[in-house]
């Protein structure tokens, strides 16, 4: 049973179903469906006339593509240089010890978002929180809607 993904049609058309649109299509697909499932990847491969392994190989190469559904919230600790020299590693380690997944929060890291003056910083649901400590991050996360 082939699933249909009508929302994907505009981006496929914009790239005229050409192979070089793969990353753009994957980006859009993830935006629409939150993560890349095998049926979705198969659909994209067929639409772009690409072998399955090419699509999987490309999708798995890039950090931002995900193959499992995201948690309700995401907390990314910036581990860029400026944040590192200001203690990002220990901030990340401290947060890793907290049971964030039970609060519906996915913890991860991001390599420099280029707003280094706020180091050490975290990105929570695409909002940048500057000059954070473990305590401040935790208190902020507690206020997120569950």
């Amino acid at each position, binding site marked *: 049973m082939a699933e249909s993904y009508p929302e994907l049609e505009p981006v496929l058309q914009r790239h005229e179903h050409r192979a070089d649109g793969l990353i753009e299509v994957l980006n859009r697909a993830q935006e629409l469906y939150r993560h890349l499932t095998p049926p979705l990847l198969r659909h994209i491969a067929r639409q772009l006339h690409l*072998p*399955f392994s090419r699509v*999987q190989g490309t999708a798995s*190469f890039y950090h931002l593509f995900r193959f499992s559904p995201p948690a309700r919230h995401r907390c990314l600790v910036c581990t860029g240089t400026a944040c590192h020299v200001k203690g990002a590693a220990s901030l990340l380690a401290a947060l890793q010890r907290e049971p964030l997944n039970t609060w519906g929060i996915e913890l991860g890291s991001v390599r420099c978002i280029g707003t280094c003056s706020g180091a050490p910083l975290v990105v929570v649901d695409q909002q940048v929180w500057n000059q954070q400590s473990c305590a401040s991050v935790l208190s902020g996360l507690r206020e997120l809607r569950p």
Partner: protein
Amino acid sequence: MNLYSLRIDDHDVAIAADSTVLQAAQEASIAIPTLCFLEGLSAVAACRMCLVEVSGNDTLLPACITPVQEGMQVHTATPRLQDIRRTLIELLFTEGNHVCGICVANGHCELQNLAVEVGMDHSRLPYRFPDRHVDLSHPLFGMDHNRCVLCTRCVRVCDEVEGAHVWDVGWRGEHCRIIAGLEEPWGAVEACTHCGKCVEVCPTGALFHRGDTTDEKHSDPARLQALMQARQQQRWNP
């Protein structure tokens, strides 16, 4: 035909201008070690075994893709290159789980031969013992990721010669692995034509015939060249 003359180690070679340094060395019967390179497939210069020194150039150049130049002076076996090749082989051995004694390709393995050639009797770097798996889902063949050196010959032969593109490389960096289809069991990938070319060109025991036991795999990459010649030129040399 435009000819270039160059000097490789102690040999003077004259060769067509569109040749690579590797071809020129072969012409002069100078053996440059290679691993990812296989005649008939596109060159990717990924294994770095064929790096050579060229006088007047600070950077080492991969012989498999470097075009010859008039008056070029190539050195293929300097102590620096020998040390580099040994380290490369050590890196490959420490990266996977290469247990020659139980391997299907034991005695007929390009990696093993290279290790002997570069004098690698042990690794100075620690083994990493990665947790990898074996895929025996295909009715005819098997894939042991423990023995894969990511040369991508299988990917290229399947794409460039057979045209099935069953294989690709998935993930990145140290997590790279050869994948079939949407990273499915090989046997579940309908694109596979069961032609066995990937097994034939695999330099190690990573790809093998099912049921092969220790020492039993004998690859013959030269068969690929014969096949391609027959296809392209309609000439057979049985």
